[in-house]
């Protein structure tokens, strides 16, 4: 197995989609390739970082001003009047 193979099939390795035999081949490559160990580690960190990047974007009721709520509801009543 080459680094190219390892990186190409990394998602399957991470998702547990490999057979036991395939997994052993991946692990054997990891045991002898520090660059792929680092790649795997930083690939995982990338996922953690991207999740964390949005953690401060919590919904606040104040984000939805009353005008917006009314505008949304007005579309509905407008539609009802037209159809009824």
């Amino acid at each position, binding site marked *: 197995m080459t680094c190219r193979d390892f990186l190409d099939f990394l998602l399957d390795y991470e998702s547990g989609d490999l057979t036991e035999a395939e997994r052993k081949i991946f692990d054997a490559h990891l045991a002898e390739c520090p660059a792929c160990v680092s790649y795997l580690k930083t690939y995982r960190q990338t996922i953690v970082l991207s999740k964390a990047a949005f953690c401060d974007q919590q919904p606040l009721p104040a984000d939805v001003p009353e005008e917006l709520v009314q505008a*949304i509801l007005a579309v509905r009543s407008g539609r009802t009047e037209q159809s009824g």
Partner: protein
Amino acid sequence: VTKSMVAPLDADEASLVRALQSGEAEAFASLVRTHAARLLTVARRFLGSEEDARDALQDTFVAAFKSIGGFEGKSRLYTWLYRILINVCLARLRTKQRRREGLIDDVLPRFLADGHQAHPAQDWSDPPDAPAQRRETRELIRQAIDQLPEDYRTVLLLRDIEELDTNEAARVLEVTAGVVKTRLHRARQALRTILDPHFRGGSL
């Protein structure tokens, strides 16, 4: 999809659905007030601009009001609204043609003829959760995600940020599960490449 998103309707929600289906104005106001803030947060992630996000929110509720008659209670109301919103956001992104065909190849790993990494990966110095606690770091990562070509950015948002599973993401995007997997992997690899110079050697 988390467990809470597929749980059956509780009594309060079931009675709200009945009120919506019989056209009670109060019920529509309650639906909007309960879910708008959470949905708006999601719309901002996909669309970036506040104006677009608000338009998408409005389109979502308008679509929901039209189709509430057909709501069968197989999912929570939020889940149902959420799916409508994702579709509205994706449709808006398609019309904008936002870097749809960007060059992802430039930020994918490169290899030597013998299959070794051309630029061998090195560890990043900080633990991943420490830098992410800083506001400027979160901003840096969000900007990096924004640099991804649209098809890849969308999959990354759906799978890693919104945490849809592969099949759900495939259904929303109308592509196969295999396409979702390939794009997710490339998106993560590209993001890793973009972030690498920032995290290598403890610059953050």
